[in-house]
């Protein structure tokens, strides 16, 4: 996994004036409205916003599973038409194939594209050791712990050496301890490859710890509220999160913006915007079959 310098790293994604509607007729609701942002190549950009504000819909647009209602999304200048191995998504709930062992899951990509050769087999072996799952090669996903499933999914994406790694709150649901260990683990993985990464979360500590560039989103319909450059030195260690004043200063800035947004969506009681978006986006996913 050689280290790429920033200048010619691929994977710059530009969104301009992107809008996305769900539902039809009077239940039509804009989830993303006129959102423009750039995910810089070679950087770990983290997007944070209240739950259900439309972040996952943005990911589905970038990954190419859905088309924006208006506006354009390009990767290195080329418009995005459909899913491709240049933009791989690690979902919130594990999308490991339950009927495949860890080994089969990880080498799914090369086999699917019939690019299996000694080089890809070595890479697979290297990655399985790297994610610490060598003794779990023959195990099925439901025999792995949450943390192990996440690492397996990371390896499955990395073997295809995508231009951009997209992660949708991958560590949500893990217990706090495993989650913090995964932060450090994922940060080191990025520091080795300096590959473009687009990480979405609702956890402020996670965002501050991981991010080179922090994109704070508003409540639904979501758009960019603020962008903060985080220049905490790398490689980053968990202890830096508590000691470094800069980390804490950024954290309180985010808190001010996001707490207000979270309260707005929360105060709406059971029919809060968050629930509607959550249900609507679930429906949107289900009816593309």
């Amino acid at each position, binding site marked *: 996994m050689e280290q790429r310098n920033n200048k010619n790293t691929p994977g710059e994604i530009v969104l301009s004036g992107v809008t996305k509607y769900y539902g039809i007729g009077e239940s039509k609701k804009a989830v993303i409205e006129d959102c423009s942002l750039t995910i810089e190549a070679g950087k770990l950009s983290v997007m944070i916003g209240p739950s259900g504000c439309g972040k996952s819909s943005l990911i589905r647009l970038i990954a190419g599973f859905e088309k924006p209602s208006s506006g354009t999304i390009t990767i290195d200048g080329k418009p995005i038409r459909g899913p491709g191995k240049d933009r791989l998504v690690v979902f919130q709930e594990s999308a490991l194939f339950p009927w495949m062992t860890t080994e089969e899951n990880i080498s799914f990509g090369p086999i699917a594209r019939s690019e299996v050769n000694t080089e890809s087999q070595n890479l697979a072996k290297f990655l399985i050791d790297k994610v610490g799952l060598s003794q779990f090669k023959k195990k099925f996903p439901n025999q792995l712990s949450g943390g192990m499933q996440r690492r397996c999914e990371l390896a499955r994406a990395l073997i295809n050496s995508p231009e951009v790694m997209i992660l949708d709150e991958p560590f949500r649901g893990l217990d706090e301890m495993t989650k913090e260990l995964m932060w450090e683990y994922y940060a080191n993985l990025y520091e080795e490859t300096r590959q473009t990464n687009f990480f979405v979360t609702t956890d402020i500590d996670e965002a501050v710890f991981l991010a080179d560039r922090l994109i704070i989103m508003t409540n639904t319909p979501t758009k960019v509220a603020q962008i903060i450059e985080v220049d905490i030195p790398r490689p980053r260690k968990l202890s830096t999160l508590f000691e470094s004043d800069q980390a804490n200063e950024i954290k309180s800035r985010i*808190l001010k913006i996001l707490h207000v947004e*979270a309260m707005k969506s929360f105060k709406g009681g059971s029919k809060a915007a968050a629930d509607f978006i959550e249900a609507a986006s679930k429906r949107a996913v289900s009816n593309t079959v």
Partner: protein
Amino acid sequence: MTNSPQTRGQISIKDVVKIYDPEGAAVMAVDHCSLEIAAGEICMIVGPSGCGKTTLLNAIAGFHSINGGSIEMDGQLLCGPGKPQATPGSDRIVVFQNGALFPWKNVIDNLMFGPLMSGKLPFNEIKEKALYMMADAGLSGTENSFPGELSSGVKRRVEIVRALMNDPSVLLLDEPYRALDSLSKSVMHEALLDIYAKNKVTIFFITHDLQEALFLGTKLAIMTTRPCKPKKILTVDIPYPRSYSVVTEKRFRDLMEETSHLVHEEAKKSFAAGEKEG
């Protein structure tokens, strides 16, 4: 609606031992654990997942028996020598990790279930109390919806109100906010402290999120990996009411630093042991 000031809900756990015996392979879950919780206190139990915290909670609630030591509440023996398993009762109510609102009852019926079962109050008095507590917790308007239609944040609040409807001495919370995303968690924490200020009930709160423990708790018990016993007990001397900005204050960060390496040691041990979640 304030019940008597902190006289109820004092718990003393003395030297409790719990051994599971699945298919004969005896596994010790709790190893001589002793812990004193004063009445009206918020005691946070922090430890890696699968270390036996929930077993302790189940023993207090009376779902499981214990093999040694004793647990008392307000001086009466809950379980101990001669009575290995406590009898569940509405003085100690559990709020479960993935929720246990009855999906077939709407919100108001869920809230009224406890008092109706005990049959002490007439129906309309219970209903009035339920409506009052719902308004108090910002839940009015959800009376007739079913749990399946509510967001997880709202469901959590309904479940806590359902517990408080029975004026329990102790609220036993088992990682109630684990499924929530961090931002909604912060809002839920403030809502819980708000309800706590009004009801002054003792809270026994299990979590593996250190920041949540320090933000909510008056007392913090850091547990070892399985078999669990308190590794360190410290009091959190941040005054109430606490708002979320306290997280960035100096005192809070010192406490975080002081406790986080303890907690991480335990986490590394269970992580290395390939401990599966929960």
